[in-house]
């Protein structure tokens, strides 16, 4: 599908990474969904999450497509490696940081809980033929999108994840003997717990990490005004009544750090590139809210890609905040957008003003021949900031927190509700309910109250087809073509087990822009079977997959 013009392709047909001011770069999103089974209040959440994974697997087996219900290949995962240049001692790490070990409950334990024999095939991890991963992450089902090269595709394959979640949820509801589960695209239970939606951006390793951190901190502190998802309740324990802009803000306590589940930092230093480590780092962004509004999501990743481009060119503003964590909370707690935060040079700025600083820097650096999508992101960003200055409520069609606040304020006005009223908490929760009938965002979208960027037919296709311009194409297509032979997978490898061969064959995909359709489609079309495919792929001077 066409997702907007691309500029300045390198001779190999690969979009540039780290060249020029553009929104194009390798990126991806991760969503941990909130999950409950209302009729089973004490159900184990890992168990419920595994039901989601297995329900989707069952749907695929019935003809939607293929999957690799496989071992995740953890060989290249290094969650304790710090981008600042050292490793954390495993013994000092919080157990939830050991993401390269399997989940708390094993598949065998889950089978036992379900009263099934331990060897029954309970899947905890799927690699989908759209190149995504659907798995049980601690106590939540998580969808990690395939690698894409631009914000519009990021929105499309993120939306595809929501469709995967909805499909699984509907399947469970329709399965006799199973209690329906509800999935929520939100980030807190509003008791004490937060769960993430993460973004990943490929960045050249040559950019020093401190340069990234200093420019990104004030950007991330203020970014919530354009893409926060809104929350009823203040404080990590919801200890004060009120409304705030961000779901996640109150759960962040540090500026920089390795953790993602405790003492959460604005800048996460996990250095796990899932790619050629000498060339790239993967910036792992943990501070975003999960977005339902497509425009919020588009601007979240689009503006971040632009700021990364500024940093790489040495053109990023660095408005150093006196206390970034406090500023993050203060901006989130003021829906009027008038609260100012202090910079070390003495200036006081609002969140909108901080965003304007970055937007102006992009405008100043934008080449005259900027591609269509880059220009679209910049235009929307600029226009939204003008609207936010004039009257934030005018941006309800484009921004999650504003759409949510508008509904909440309407309830408050009609029924005279205080912020402590449980009905407002319910509106907050049900805004993120993914059920098409019950979800409030879903209702707003159907009424035409929000702007949509991607066509539902394209979303349906993206749930079963990989992007064509990254290694996700290779991964997804291998799974589609050779489901029986692919026995393991990860972001940067696929493991084949060929009939009659005793050794497994591991194909590395460490270059995110190789393995694209342009480089491998013909090979897939020509190969007779998995063995023939691997023989063709691995013979000769071929750089279609790995460098």
């Amino acid at each position, binding site marked *: 599908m066409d997702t907007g013009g691309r500029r300045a392709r390198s001779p190999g047909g690969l979009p540039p990474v780290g060249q020029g001011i553009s929104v194009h770069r390798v990126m991806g999103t991760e969503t*941990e969904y*909130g*999950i*409950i089974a*209302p009729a089973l*209040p004490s159900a184990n*959440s890992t168990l419920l999450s595994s039901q989601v994974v297995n329900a989707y697997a069952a749907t695929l087996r019935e003809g939607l497509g293929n999957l690799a219900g496989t071992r995740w290949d953890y060989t290249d995962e290094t969650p304790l490696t710090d981008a600042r240049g050292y490793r954390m001692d495993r013994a000092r790490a919080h157990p*939830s940081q050991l993401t390269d070990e399997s989940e708390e409950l094993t598949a065998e334990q889950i089978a036992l809980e379900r009263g099934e024999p331990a060897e029954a095939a309970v899947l905890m991890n799927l690699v989908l033929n759209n190149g995504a991963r659907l798995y049980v*992450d*601690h*106590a*939540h089902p998580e969808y990690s999108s395939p690698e894409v090269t631009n914000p519009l595709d990021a929105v499309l394959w993120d939306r595809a994840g929501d469709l995967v979640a909805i499909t699984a949820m509907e399947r469970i509801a329709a399965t006799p003997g199973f209690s329906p589960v509800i999935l*929520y695209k939100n980030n*807190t*239970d*509003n*008791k*004490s*717990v*937060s*769960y*993430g939606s*993460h973004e990943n951006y490929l960045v050249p390793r040559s950019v020093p990490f401190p340069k990234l951190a200093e420019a990104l901190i004030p950007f991330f502190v203020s970014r919530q005004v354009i893409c926060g998802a809104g929350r009823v*309740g203040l404080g990590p*324990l*919801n*200890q*004060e*009544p*009120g409304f705030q802009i961000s779901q996640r803000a109150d759960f962040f306590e540090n500026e920089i750090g390795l953790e*993602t*589940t405790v003492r959460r930092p604005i800048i996460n230093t996990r250095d796990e590139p899932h790619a050629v480590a000498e060339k790239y780092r993967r910036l792992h962004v*943990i501070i975003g809210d999960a977005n339902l509004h497509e425009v919020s999501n588009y601007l979240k990743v689009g503006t971040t890609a632009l700021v990364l481009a500024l940093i790489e060119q040495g053109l990023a503003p660095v408005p150093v905040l006196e206390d970034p964590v406090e500023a993050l909370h203060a901006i989130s707690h003021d829906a009027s957008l008038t609260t100012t935060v202090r910079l070390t040079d003495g200036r006081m700025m609002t969140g909108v003003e901080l965003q304007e600083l970055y937007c102006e820097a992009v405008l100043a650096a934008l080449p005259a021949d900027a591609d269509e999508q880059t220009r679209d992101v910049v235009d929307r960003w600029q226009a939204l900031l003008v609207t936010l200055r004039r009257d934030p409520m005018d941006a309800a069609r484009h921004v999650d927190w504003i759409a949510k606040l508008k*509904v909440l304020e*309407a*309830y*408050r*006005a*009609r*029924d*005279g509700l*205080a*912020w*402590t*009223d*449980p*009905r407002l*908490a*319910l*509106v907050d*929760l*049900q805004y993120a309910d993914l059920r098409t*009938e*019950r979800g*409030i965002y879903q*209702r*707003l979208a159907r*009424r035409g*109250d929000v702007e949509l960027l991607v066509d539902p037919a394209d979303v349906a296709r993206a749930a079963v087809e990989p992007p064509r311009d990254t290694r996700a194409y290779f991964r997804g297509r291998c799974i589609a073509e050779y489901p029986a032979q692919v026995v393991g997978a990860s972001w940067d490898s696929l493991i084949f087990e060929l009939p009659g061969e005793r050794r497994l064959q591991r194909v590395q995909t460490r270059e995110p822009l190789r393995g694209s359709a342009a480089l491998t489609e013909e090979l897939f079309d020509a190969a007779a079977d998995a063995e023939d495919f691997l023989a063709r792929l691995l013979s000769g001077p071929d750089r279609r997959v790995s460098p």
Partner: protein
Amino acid sequence: MASQDRITTGGSSSESEEELPEPVPSAPAAQESTQTQGVDDLLDEIDGVLESNAEEFVRGFVQKGGQ
């Protein structure tokens, strides 16, 4: 927490920054603009799908920590 909220409400002080709107008994009396009409429609629609026992439902939404 839902239960804490209630305690705070009962306690007294919690509404410091937000002025409580007059509890207008939802008389549609002077609502003329189409925008207000749209909001009314929307609230009617949402009323129809909101979980029935708000307090209990919200209290039951308990998650384990994530990333």
